[in-house]
């Protein structure tokens, strides 16, 4: 007779903790990617031309690390779409590297190669985005995402749709923290999130 109450209490505890965790961790729920991957990629290519940091670096090839969760179908799908778009676009100077991240994200630091200059964040579920942004800021890696909400959460560059047209979202503080030096011309046409 006492076991069942005990089990119940345990479950309840778990749920409570998870709730707290959710509240504390600013969990990232899975979000929609509104702009097709090929367009995103084309825009990223264009945007990077406005980033003086990129031009100053003189790098011929831009290595973009795609951060995704293999457990999350949407994340995988978007990642695959982006890879396909990259291959189809024939952008020689952009190189895509998928980076699988676990649920806690503690493998991210080690999973991102040094040559990666851009981290492309796929839709993630129950993931603390700060892990990605803190890495990107420490390593001066530009973060890009197709999930517009992520820009508000700290990703430097994102895309959404406005009036049926893709809109560039730039988190200026995040971008500058990540070492980006976007021209005001770009900023002028993008939606700058301060």
């Amino acid at each position, binding site marked *: 007779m006492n076991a069942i109450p005990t089990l119940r209490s345990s479950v309840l505890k778990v749920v409570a903790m998870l709730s707290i965790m959710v509240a504390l961790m600013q969990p990232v729920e899975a979000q929609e990617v509104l702009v097709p991957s090929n367009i995103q990629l084309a825009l990223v290519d264009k945007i990077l031309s406005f980033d003086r940091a990129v031009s100053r670096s003189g790098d011929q090839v831009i290595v973009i690390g795609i951060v995704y969760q293999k457990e999350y179908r949407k994340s995988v799908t978007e990642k695959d779409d982006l890879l396909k778009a990259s291959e189809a676009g024939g952008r020689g100077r952009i190189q895509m590297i998928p980076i699988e991240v676990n649920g806690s994200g503690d493998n991210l630091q080690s999973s991102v190669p040094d040559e990666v200059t851009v981290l492309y964040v796929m839709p993630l579920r129950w993931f603390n985005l700060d892990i990605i942004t803190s890495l990107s800021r420490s390593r001066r890696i530009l973060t890009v995402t197709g999930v517009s909400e992520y820009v508000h959460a700290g990703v430097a560059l994102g895309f959404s749709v406005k009036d049926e047209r893709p809109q560039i979202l730039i988190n*200026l503080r995040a971008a500058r923290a990540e070492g980006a*030096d*976007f*021209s*005001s*011309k770009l*900023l*002028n046409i993008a939606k*700058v999130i301060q």
Partner: protein
Amino acid sequence: MIPFNIRHLGLRTKLALIVSVIIGLISIFIFVYFPQRHREQEMEGTAARAKSIAVMTAFNVGAAILFDDTTTIHEAFGAARENKDLMYIIVQDKQGVILASYSGDKVSLGHSHVSVAEDFISEEEEFYQSSVPVLHRGEELGKVIIGISLQQLNEEVRSVRMAIGALSALIFLAGIVIAYWTSTWITTPLRLIAHTAQQISAGDISKRAPEISQDEVGKMARAFNVMVDNLETVNRELESRVRERTSQLQFQSERLAVFSQTGQALNSAATPLDAARIIADVADRLFGWDACTIDYYSHGSIFPVLNIDTINDVRTDVPATLVNRPPTERMQRIIEKGAEIICRAPGEGFPRNVVPFGDTQRPSMSLMFAPIKSGEKVTGILSIQSYRQDAYKDDDLKTLQSLADYCGGALERIQNTDALRTSEKKYRDIVEFAPVGIYQFGKDGTIVSANSEMSRILGYSSVEELIRCGMEQLYFDVNDSERLIDILERNGSAQNVEIRWKKKDGSPVWIELASHAIEDEQEKALCFEGFVKDISPRKKADEALKESLAFQRAIFEGSRDAVFIAADNSAFVSVNEAACQLTGYSKEELLSMRIPDLHDEADLDAYDQFHDRIMGGEQILSEASIRRKDGTKVETEFNNTRIFIGGVPFMHTTARDSTERQKAQSHIVFQARLLDAVEEAVIATDHDGRIVFWNSFARKLYGWEEADVLGKNLIEAIPSPDGRSRAGEIAKRLLSGGSWSGEMVVHRRDGTSFPAQVADSPILEEGGGLIGMVSVSVDISERKALETQFLRAQRLESLGTLAGGIAHDLNNVLGPIMLTFDILRQDIGEGKYKKLLENAESSTLRGKNIVSQILMFARGNQGERGPIQSKHIIKEVLGIIGETFPRNIEIKSDILKDLPPLNADATQIHQVIMNLCVNARDAMPNGGVLTLKAQNFEVDEQFEKLHISAKRGRYVLLSISDTGTGIPSEIIDRIFDPFFTTKGAGKGTGLGLSTVHAVVKNHGGFVDVKSEPEHGSTFRVFLPALEGDEPPFQRKEVEIEWNGKGHTILVVDDEETVREVTKQSLETFGYEVLTAEDGVAAVVNFSLNRERISAVVTDVMMPLMDGIALTRALRRMEPNLKIIAVSGMLPESYVHILENMGVDAILSKPFTSRDLMKALGDALLI
């Protein structure tokens, strides 16, 4: 300042100078304007460029400022720096913080660069600054300031200015050359013309201007040459004329000299003959002559002045052949046509129409005649003749004419002077010896010249002494002089002006003055001259005559009587104002009329005789009517006499309007008749009380004729005990000027007396003294009788009110008693007490009748009225009295068939007639005749006045007469008083006649009685007739037995006895009865038993809630409830209210059971 006089320059120089100046100005303009213009354009371009650079830079740095992208800002600078003139660029934010800047070498940016908002050029024009705001999506983020160097621009402008300056100088120089060449080219022909003109002016008239061009100058040269040619021609002609003229002038000059000398000589000529000799001498010097004549021509006649002929080579004065004769044919021709020269052929003798003079054997071969004129008028003929052939030429004739013209005025003047002198002497003598004063006075009024008579009139010893006088010494009033001068200046003359002047000794003298102004050419008065005549004696005589005439005129005009003076032919020659007022005509109109014009034709039959008698010396007084101008007639009395004026007989008539007098007479007659017409005795006495006037009514009233009483004392004529007793009082009042009035009994001539209202008034003279008395008296017997009737009526009304109150209380007492009889009758049946009951009921009924009669007397007890025919009632009464009255009383009747109906209560009228018949019977204890009459009667105004109760209209007169004992006069006034009776105790109630009076009065009629002791009485009852048809016959009521079973009646009365008795009475007839002691209880009872109660019998006069209030309340509760009102004595207003409220019946107490049952039965329809 121009250092030289431009007018002195030549045309070429002027032209060259002007053109040069113009060109110079143009050059200067070019030098100044175009570089400046260039510089402005360059500056505009620079400013535009700076602006565009700034705008472009601002555009480029907008987003960069927003996003702090300094790299982009600097990139933008790079684009701007491509402009080599760019000195600096500054980008600052909104707060003025410089975000980025660029400045070239040698440029240090300071606050001044950023502090100025507008675009500007630096002080030394080193740079141009332009600033534009940096806008991003409409929001100003900052400012871009551009500085552009102006160095290059300035250099460019400088070089341009130099080039233009050189060009201007070149233009100027070229312009000078061109100007000079052009002016030379233009002015050369003009100069040549001018040179030619100079030569010509120098005298070389042969010179001509070269015609070297075909333009205007060439034309001018040609015209100039033509002009010079003409000038040369004219000059030649002019020279010849000048020469000719010079010779003429020379000749004329010589002649003028001669004429001048002649003029001087003529001025000194004293006589016409001297003047003629001078003229002849001049003519001799000018022409030479052998014979010379000078004749005057005046008024168609020739008067020779000078005739000189050369006889035997000696010039000799010869007698004229024509003296004061008409001119000869030749003379006439000369006079009409002018000067004439005659040159005879050799051997030609004297013409036939010429009268020779002097050497008549030797005719003149050359003759010249010239008319001598003064202005346009020929005043004489000058003639010179020569024995030589062709001695004179036409020019000589002209000269002669000139001489004649020159001398004409002088000759006339001399002649006039001579005549004037003669005339002057003549007039001087006239003036000096004239019997009137002649004088001249200046515009200031002072005398400048006068004759001896003038000085004599004014008492001065000489004219010189008179002339020295000033105006104040001549005029008593200096204004007279000014007025006179004013008249003269305005009118030019004054005639018959009479003025009073002062003599030397200061005494006045009247003078009559005639004067006129002496005017200059502008017709302004220079001075005045005139005649004066001493008219003092005449003035005195005039004054005296004037006074006399004025006096007579005043009398004539002031007369209130019309005065007419007519000539023998009856035409008016003088009338006064009163005559105009009398006739309505004006004086002018009357003076054009004759005596018959003022009268109608019918009045003129005897006029001729009348006229003859008066003109024969008879004085006649007459009366006739005058027809005024407006057609009306006025009665007039005349006094006609004959008078003489200047020995001529005239008819003198004074007339007076007699209308007023006749009116006054008529008025007096009218007033006398008026006094006779009044219906009052008017008696006038003198101071002693003796009768002096006795009008016709006094004669009628008192029975005395006027002749009987005139001169008698008033008290003797009209004896009156009252008058005697009051005589002192009346006299005292009259003597104090007051009046007295009052009533007194006076006696007629036949000894009878009557009451009279007398009013005595004093007749006072102007000073207030009593000179007589007028007494007005009137018979007031009828008025007294009316007063008695009125008092009687008032007394009856008071009694009626008292009796009414008593009757009302008695009704309440009798009511229950009468109701009880019905109850008792049923219980008693046919027993022994039935008779007692009947007696009691009979007595009670009698009591009720008495009360009814009292009520009838008091209020008329209005019963049911309707149209009734009195003759039916009379017949009914006749039937009754015929059966019941004693046989020794004969009953007669006289009833008019067509009596009008009455609106009356038949029962009451019946009662009235019965009462009167009963009284008549009682007045004839031994038998007699009782007469009933019924007739129509019309009350007129007169009757109305005599009977206080009578009103004008139709009445039915019912007369009941007897031949009984009559009514003594001392009690006749009381017979209508209630309870008044002459019968013994128990034989009469004394209510019969009072009832008659009350009933008749209530019906709007009245009663009067005439009675004579021992002869009987006649009572006349006047009842107002009802207009309309005879009323229908009224059906008799049928007795019905009532049964109230099934109905409940509510009885309301504040008296318990009445309630109980009424209750029992109703129960006897099968009603169920509920009672209430007042209106409030009745309402409560009704509300509790409303379904049962069929009707309510209620007293009207109750405390708390009376019958009217109860009826109103019950009607609200049950509109169809049957209500019967009961009361002893209801005012008419209450009756109306109850009727309006719809009560079913109103019963008067005391009522019988039958009355109550009938009322309930009618209401409940049972």
